[in-house]
Every structure is written in C-alpha cells, then in structure tokens.
C-alpha cells in the first residue's frame, strides 16, 4: 500500500536544464496537486488537476509544466530551471473536489545551482 510517492527525493541540477519531478498515487484519487514550500512563503499551489487530461494553474505556475495522461501520475516539469526554483516540492492527491482533503507525498528537495 504505497499511497502517494514522489521521485526523486533529492535533486541537484544546473540553471537552464530541464528537470521532471514525478508523482504517483495508488488510490485512484481524482484530484492531484503540486506545491512548492519556501521559507517565508509557506506552501504555494503551482498546478492542480481534476482528472486525467484536465489541468489548471495555481498561484505560482510560471516556469512549470504539468501533464496528466493517467489518473495515477502527475509529473511536474521545470523546462529551464532557475535558481529561484530551488525549493521543496510536494505532490498531493484528493479523492474529490471541495473541501479538497489532501494526502501529501514525502516531497522532493530540488536545488538549482
């Protein structure tokens, strides 16, 4: 019973490189979310998805791309990484819509040098 997993757990990349963070959930939850957590800003929503092939922007979407071809996977791609994207990234899933009771993955710590 894996629940929700993220990979890799730690990643160091260089400015300008493309990097993809993976998120996989085994509950068949409809909704999935990507957040970044930074000191002083808390958790901020990047993108979310209500179902396969349906995605929408959150509070801070610039510089990120998502896709959801299968219900269980929700990868997040940084097309050209910048130092300001150094952060801890969390994926979450929710069985239904509002109030979006979310279950979080363990996070990916990304460092852009």
């Amino acid at each position, binding site marked *: 019973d894996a629940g929700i997993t993220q990979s890799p757990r730690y990643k160091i990349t260089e400015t300008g490189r493309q990097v993809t963070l993976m998120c996989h959930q085994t509950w068949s939850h409809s909704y999935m979310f990507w957040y970044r957590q930074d000191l002083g800003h*808390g958790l901020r*929503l990047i993108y*979310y998805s209500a179902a396969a092939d349906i995605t929408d922007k959150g509070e801070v979407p610039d510089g990120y791309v998502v896709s959801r071809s299968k219900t269980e996977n929700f990868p997040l791609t940084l097309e050209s990484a910048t130092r300001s994207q150094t952060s801890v990234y969390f994926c979450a899933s929710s069985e239904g819509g509002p109030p*979006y009771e979310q279950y979080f993955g*363990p996070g990916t710590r990304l460092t852009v040098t």
Partner: protein
Amino acid sequence: TQLLEQSPQFLSIQEGENLTVYCNSSSVFSSLQWYRQEPGEGPVLLVTVVTGGEVKKLKRLTFQFGDARKDSSLHITAAQPGDTGLYLCAGAMITGNQFYFGTGTSLTVIP
C-alpha cells in the same frame, strides 16, 4: 501577501500548557483545514471545518471556524512534546477552485 495569515509564527511552550493558534483572512472560504507537518515530511490533514461557527474536537485539539468563514483557530489543551511541529491552516476559496495555505505556526513543546 498571503491570503491566510497565521499567528503566532513561532511558539515555544512548556509541556502541560495550553495554546491557541489563529488563522485569519479578509476573504471568505467555503472550508478551512488544519494540517500538521513534521521535518522532512509532507503535511498531514488533522481536520476540515465547513460550516460557519463549527467546532470540532480531536482529543486535546479543538478547532473552530469563524461565523463569517474568514478565520479559524486551533486550541491545544495540555500540550505534549509529541505536538511539536508546523501547523498549517488551508482553505478553498468560495469562488473558483483555488486552494491556499497559511503562513504556518511552528510549535515547540518543551518536556
């Protein structure tokens, strides 16, 4: 500017003391949630409140949703070291599908 402001930002208390954490906004939310996060882990949902004025209890934790659905509070009675962590409020806006987290309250309970 954060949509949900929490206070205090940091709190250090002795075991056995009581405490209250506040989550405030100028916007109306359809629901508010409280999560607890420990270092190196993702947040874990504690409770969801959906009705203005609603009070929910979870053992020594009491959660309240404001009558106007703009604020919430978390009260812990007789805090224990195991309560140590980052407490986050979060909510779904009443319009649209946006979801916001609060700024967080870091609680340390000293044995």
